[in-house]
């Protein structure tokens, strides 16, 4: 099966501007995102993860190499709309991506642009709003909603395009813990129940835990790539890159350094507690 997103020797350099040298962000990056997967991309600030995301739907075009979306070359202008329809994009600030004064008008924005007939738009808007659990708010003004609700509207706005993949660029960075939970559970549900490919860019380790694959970026390259268990057990590597590990892994790591025989691969609090309980029993 062809991967939904594939980069081939991707390089990108921000062009030189006044008083600034040309700044290479990444070079020769090879990456594949499988259809239906939930991938988290993590990395410290300035490692190029947002720039990478913008290549996935042709907002930025590579300075070298290629990006393929379901086999379509993103540098082909003829395919631009289809690529953007297939890869939905959600950004950090919910205020700056809501276009209309009424929730349902905003969700309708993308299908309107695509020239979908009116009755079909109505159906898509209702479905998308129900999926994110915002149907009751369809006639509200977006600026009166909470951050988490606004971000869910933004997700619904992308869903109305019926995309195959949604790329979220730090969607929770501006939200309070409750809004963060709302958004993460919505994303997880979209992936599990509707089979939509999700690429989540974040620097919250707790959110990356939900993914089935984590890509760690550092200085424009891929530091490590694999399942959350595999990635988070490489504590030293992550620390060197200036990244945190989840609290559970952190605890197990400290205990191990203190001489306890513990695995590092516990991601939830329950797993962690069980592992420690088992170790204590053996000790006694």
């Amino acid at each position, binding site marked *: 099966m062809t991967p939904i997103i594939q980069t081939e020797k991707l390089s990108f350099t921000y062009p030189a501007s006044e008083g600034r040298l040309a700044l290479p962000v990444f070079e020769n990056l090879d990456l594949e995102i499988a259809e239906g997967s939930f991938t988290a991309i993590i990395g410290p600030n300035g490692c190029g993860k947002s720039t990478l995301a913008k290549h996935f*739907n042709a*907002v930025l075009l590579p300075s070298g190499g290629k990006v393929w979306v379901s086999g379509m070359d993103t540098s082909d202008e003829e395919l631009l*709309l289809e690529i*953007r*329809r297939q890869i*939905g*994009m959600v*950004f950090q*600030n919910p*205020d*700056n*991506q*809501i*276009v*209309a*004064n*009424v929730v*349902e*008008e905003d969700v*309708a*924005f*993308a*299908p*309107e*642009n*695509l*020239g*979908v*007939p*009116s009755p079909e*738009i*109505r159906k898509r*808007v209702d479905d998308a709003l129900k999926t994110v659990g915002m149907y009751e708010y369809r006639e509200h*003004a*977006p*600026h009166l909603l909470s951050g988490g609700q606004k971000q869910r509207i933004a997700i619904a*706005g*992308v869903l109305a*395009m019926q995309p195959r993949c949604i790329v979220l660029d730090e969607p929770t960075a501006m939200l309070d813990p409750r809004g963060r939970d709302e958004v993460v559970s919505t994303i997880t549900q979209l992936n599990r129940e509707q089979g939509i490919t999700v690429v989540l860019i974040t620097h919250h380790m707790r959110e990356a835990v939900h993914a089935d694959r984590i890509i760690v970026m550092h200085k424009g390259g891929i530091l490590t790539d694999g399942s959350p268990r595999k990635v988070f057990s490489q504590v030293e590597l992550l620390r060197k890159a200036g990244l945190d590990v989840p609290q559970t892994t952190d605890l197990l790591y400290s205990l191990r350094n203190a001489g306890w025989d513990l695995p590092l691969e516990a991601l939830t609090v329950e797993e962690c507690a069980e592992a420690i309980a088992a170790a204590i029993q053996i000790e006694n």
Partner: protein
Amino acid sequence: MLKDITLGQFFPGKSIVHRLDPRTKILLLIIYIVALFLAKSWCSYGLVLLFLIAVTCLGRIPFKAMTRGLKPMLVFIIFTAVLNLFYTKSGTKLLDWWIFEIWSDGIITAFFMVMRIMMLICGTFLMTYTTSPIALTDALERLMNPLKKLHVPVHELAMMMSIALRFIPTLIEETDKIISAQKARGADFETGSLMRRAKALIPILVPLFVSAFRRADELATAMECRCYHGGEGRTRLKVLRYAGRDWVAFLVGALLLAGVIVLRRLGL
């Protein structure tokens, strides 16, 4: 301090006036204004006033709201009245004192002028009271559609208007935040001469503009990501459609205009 700025003064409601197609309301307003300017006599003014009162009642708009809209125009209205009162010199002379002369026709003309201005304002307010800004923008886009042939960027103008409306509350909130932040740093906006106070606004306006440009940039990217590519081939969620009540409204408008013209011909 900025929270009480209301926009377009829209009173949400479900009355027949609210439910009329926004295009009908714009066209009806134009008919109304033409009728108002054709009106010359007591009878015709009465007819137009009757129409205004009837629509206000149908739209369930409180009369207080209508008079509130007149308040900022008070100076202008009084100025017009005074001007007409002293500069019309026909009919019978009623008063002659120093350089002031008042003639009987002056009183009537002044009264008509005041009525005309007040009814003009009330009519316009009636439309904004019963139509949401977004519906108005939509209607304007549709009504100006023929201008596209003359390369007028109708869709772009309408899109700009609706985005401006969408971002006004967001920017007001932002301004409030910046004001608080500057106050916390010891900025003083309330004392000093006018010049000083105007200068004190600079630390508010600069960050506001910077953030507005950043927002505009992000919004443009987000719109492109949602396949925005101008007005071509665009469909709408809600399509404006004339209903039976719109034709009735047009009929009433036509009758009003005809009535005023007939009264004018008869010299009543």
